């Protein structure tokens, strides 16, 4: 299936995707979309709307109950091995076990060493890349600090650095902005967008808040267990759509040429 003739192969293509967990929970249904590369994509939706499930399905960690998903032409069920060479993944923060004594450098190097064959020794190149990545999120001074002792926002930045230090044309980040303050958000978003533009890679990012990224993203997937909206941030800034996803209190306000989306999740989202 996969071919490397380049530009026509979509980054991610989902067709009639449905995912049901073993406990019977139908996390996703009727999901079809195509994302082209290179691009910056945001996945938004309320808690339990299947955002993480969609990411895990794209990574081949969960298999579709129905339908298909492919990443750069590779099928997520049959060719997950190939896909895993192409992606870098940052899971939701609470999936990182903090009871193991890792230092910041160990976490960042992990992104590179996982992609190397055994015995996975860190070369000076690996260390250099890890330090550069940490510098991008302004965390280089914490190179030797125990990871579990960092604040939530600092840990999030280190995890983003782990993705930046690794290799592969697709970065998948599950809520990298969760629990971060405005300054951390800016750092992470800027680091990601700079990196995305300069390195010809694509980013898919789950978030609850379109605010900090709406000028960067080309695609937004609006999820509530099924795909309720897909398109540019402009397209999904639709009152009816936002109400369907976030409930009747969500609203979009137009003011002097800008659209503002107000939901409980995002606060106010200004959109030009």
């Amino acid at each position: 299936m996969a071919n490397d003739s380049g530009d026509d192969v979509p980054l991610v293509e989902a067709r009639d995707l449905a995912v049901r967990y073993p406990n019977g929970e139908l996390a996703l249904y009727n999901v079809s979309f195509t994302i082209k590369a290179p691009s910056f994509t945001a996945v938004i939706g309320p808690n339990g709307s299947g955002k993480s499930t969609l990411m895990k399905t794209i990574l081949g960690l969960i298999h579709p109950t129905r339908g298909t998903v492919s990443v750069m032409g590779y099928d997520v069920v049959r060719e997950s091995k190939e896909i895993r060479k192409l992606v870098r993944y940052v899971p939701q923060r609470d999936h990182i076990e903090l009871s193991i004594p890792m230092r910041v450098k160990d976490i960042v190097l992990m992104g590179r060493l996982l992609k190397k064959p055994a015995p996975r020794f860190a070369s000076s190149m690996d260390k250099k890349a890890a330090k550069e990545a940490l510098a991008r999120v302004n965390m280089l001074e914490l190179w030797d600090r125990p990871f579990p002792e960092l604040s939530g926002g600092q840990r999030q930045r280190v995890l983003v650095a782990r993705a930046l230090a690794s290799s592969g044309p697709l970065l998948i980040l599950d809520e990298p902005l969760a629990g971060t303050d405005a300054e951390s958000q800016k750092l992470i978003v800027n680091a990601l967008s700079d990196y995305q533009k300069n390195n010809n890679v694509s980013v898919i990012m789950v978030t609850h808040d379109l605010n900090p990224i709406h000028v960067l993203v080309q695609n937004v997937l609006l999820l509530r267990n099924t795909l309720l909206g897909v398109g540019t941030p402009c397209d999904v800034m639709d009152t009816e759509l936002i109400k369907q996803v976030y409930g009747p209190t969500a609203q979009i306000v137009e003011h002097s040429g800008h659209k503002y989306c107000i939901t409980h999740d995002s606060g106010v989202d200004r959109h030009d």
Partner: protein
Amino acid sequence: MIDIIDLILNTPFLQRALIAALLIAIIAATSGTFLVFRGLSFMTSGVAHAALGGAALGFFLQAIGLFPWFDPTLGAIVFAVLVAVITGYAGESGVAQKMEVAVGVSFALSMSIAVFLMYYIPPDKVLVLWGYLVGDILLMTNQDIVMLTITTILVAFIILLFKKEFVYVSVDYEGSLAHGLNARGYHYLILVISSIAIALATKAVGAILVYAILVAPAAASNETLKSVNKVMIGVFIIALVAQVIGIMTSFIVPVSPSAITGILAALSYIIALQIRKIREKVNEGIPEVIHQETTNIE
């Protein structure tokens, strides 16, 4: 000092006990450390008691002459591995509660099998079987030592060889998988080799001591030490010292070495908790210092 060396040189069972203490300290430093990292320390007790059930089945089958080739040690290993794999399977979805249930059920089942079969096993064999529970490091045979040595080398070799992989699987299972690591393979590998080691250690020194030595020192080190290597070394030292003191004490006062070792191991954990608390208090007092201490990037 000379007296002690003289005593050791002239007492084969003491030599065996000290070698066993060393081997078990190595198992604790490798398997014990990673089981605690994986949040699976409670599995140790399930596996140790499964070994008891497996051995009981072995004695029973030999006693009734049905499968004379079914060695009790083999039974112990098979049961131990089975429990580890079932636990691992229950835990694969990442739900620790399911693992606890799996361990609890296996624990109850193995103990019931053991107690049930005890009535049908010759009395001299029942004594051996009790050894699986409250064994004595001073009563080890040469055969025990040989088997324990082989297992220890195997376990230590595999764990040191795949240390990074095991760490990654423990820290971020999904992330490891997503980056192409055979996380599931490593998950089961550590469960299987650890359960073999636990089964043979149980046969050698008894379930209670194995549980104390594999869990408490690893938990204690993990509370206080800040790198994986340091934790492993810390576990080794605590486990070895606790066992050697246990053995030595039993020469001075009439007491089971397992009991002393178990108490010392538990004590190490309590002390570690206190150290951690004190440290946290100190750090709360001077928050600036922590920020400045690590600016040594070239």
